[in-house]
């Protein structure tokens, strides 16, 4: 087995060295005689476990605290944690205390080729539609060559609250208004305004009339390692593009979901030029796991074609929406299609959506005063 090899962030490496956290070294002896004995005992207990049948607990040794309770695997929590974080309403956290609220999720969109009850497996071959959209996207007008990329989006997200060991992760649902500025020097400023917290029954209580009336919840400027021209730097061949956006060792069998997720991230952070957009739709057309859900109307009332694939989290599917007339990217949604103990929603349910309101290039003078932004 190989060990750590990649350290592609020397700045982070230096920072960790400075606090005494040195790079993991698999050859480093971590154990003394006592811990070796424990490891041997651990191994013995593990290989005693029957495979494919009921398995006994691996604990209950005198040197382990008794009474620990274990739940099943929760890998899906990692996916949820990748969504931008916000704290509004705790949902679906079982245990003592007040009963968890079942937060109300946005209504499902209607699709011409699928019914809500069948979203778990729904979808028709998408190749022809995506190729047609690629051709249209190639003729989209170029954004003016101004220095700052500006993306405006409306979103609702479920998220896992960053928490410490005492508080643990919490799943939340909040409406958000996002304004992203990608600067030429690679730095990125993200201004987020959040809607009112949902009430204890998950209902929206006080939606703002205009987002302009709402003070930014967060205003952060940080280094974007990928740089301002990341979309243009992507490989020009479909196979190269696929390997970059959905590395086989990172995506496993969920290449379609990986690709849709990567596309969604790209358009949420960059003004993607028409040629790259067209190439992205060709790439999606090449993946048979990406299916068409047909036509729909998005959250902003725009006509859209919907394409879907299984997400990395097997309980969810991710879909993107594209303008059928122009090939323009419109937004993405994530739909819970199977029960997930980490979320307090009953499938099918929309657990996240992002609708792109605007994507263009602006002059530096159009960027809001940065005196209030927090620089990281």
């Amino acid at each position, binding site marked *: *087995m190989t*060990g*750590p*090899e*990649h*350290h592609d962030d020397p700045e*982070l490496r230096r920072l960790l060295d400075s*606090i*005494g*956290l040195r*790079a*993991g070294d*698999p050859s480093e002896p*971590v*154990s003394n005689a006592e811990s070796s004995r424990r490891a041997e005992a651990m*191994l013995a*207990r*593990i*290989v005693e476990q029957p*495979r*494919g049948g009921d*398995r006994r607990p*691996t*604990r209950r040794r005198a*040197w*382990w605290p008794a009474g620990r*309770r*274990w*739940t*099943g*695997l929760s*890998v*899906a*929590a*990692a*996916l949820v*944690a990748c969504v931008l974080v916000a704290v509004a309403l705790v949902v679906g*956290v079982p*245990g*003592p*205390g007040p009963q968890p609220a079942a937060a109300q999720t946005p209504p499902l969109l209607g699709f011409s080729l699928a019914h809500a009850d069948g979203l778990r497996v729904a979808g028709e071959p998408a190749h022809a539609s995506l190729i047609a959209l690629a051709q249209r996207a190639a003729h989209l007008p170029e954004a003016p060559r101004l220095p700052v990329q500006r993306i405006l989006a409306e979103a609702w997200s479920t998220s896992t609250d*960053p928490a410490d*060991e*005492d508080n*643990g*992760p919490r799943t939340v649902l909040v409406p958000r208004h996002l304004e992203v500025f990608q600067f030429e020097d690679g730095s990125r400023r993200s201004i987020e305004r959040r809607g009112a917290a949902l009430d204890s029954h998950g209902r929206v209580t006080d939606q703002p009339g205009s987002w302009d009336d709402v003070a930014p919840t967060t205003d952060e400027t*940080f280094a*974007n390692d990928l740089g301002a021209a990341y979309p243009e730097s992507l490989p020009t061949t479909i196979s190269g593009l696929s390997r970059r*956006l959905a*590395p086989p*060792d*990172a*995506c*496993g069998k969920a290449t379609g979901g*990986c690709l849709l997720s*990567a596309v969604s*991230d790209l358009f949420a*952070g960059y003004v993607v030029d028409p040629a790259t957009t067209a190439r992205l739709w060709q790439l999606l057309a090449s993946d048979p796991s990406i299916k068409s859900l047909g036509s729909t109307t998005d959250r902003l009332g725009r006509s859209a074609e919907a394409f879907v694939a299984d997400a*990395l989290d097997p309980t969810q599917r991710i879909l993107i929406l594209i303008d059928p007339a122009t090939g323009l990217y419109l937004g993405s949604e994530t739909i819970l299609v199977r029960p997930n103990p980490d979320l307090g929603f009953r499938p099918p349910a929309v657990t996240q959506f992002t609708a792109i309101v605007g994507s263009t290039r602006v002059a530096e003078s159009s960027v809001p005063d940065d005196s209030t932004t927090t620089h*990281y």
Partner: protein
Amino acid sequence: MDAREFEKVFWVLQPQLLRHARHQLDPAGAEDVVAETLTTLWVKSLPLPTSDDEERGLRALAYQVLGGHIRNEYRSRRRRRALAERVVAQPVDGIARDVSPDDVDDDGAIRHWLGQLSVDDREVILLFNAGFDLAESARILGCSFSAAAKRRTRARERLRAIVERERGRQQ
């Protein structure tokens, strides 16, 4: 993997996973989650890796499973803590937070710094420290490559801010 093959994998992965878990949990808790993680791999009857790619894939899977168990452990502790607070009707203190990194041993100092980060930030930094590149981290975290990149950048800057603030205060 038969038992003999699993044993080889165990002795490679167990120390790495334990070190990773100890930065996030107390020693007993770390051993618990590592045992559960390796049991999961054993029960899954996975094939023995035969190439570097497969080895890295298995290692990434192990960290992915471990991440899930650690989150479950946090959740479980939160429930227990809430129950304890209901019983005694007053807040139950968690780990001590007002400890200077100079007052504790090396492991304690690292936990002091990392303990001020969110679970998400801590996880992405520890995956980096364990040697995972961005593509592998993305798979383990269940997010896209670019999301993992953004997440790591933010975590790095948050940690830097914490370290600079605290060291500035001590000077």
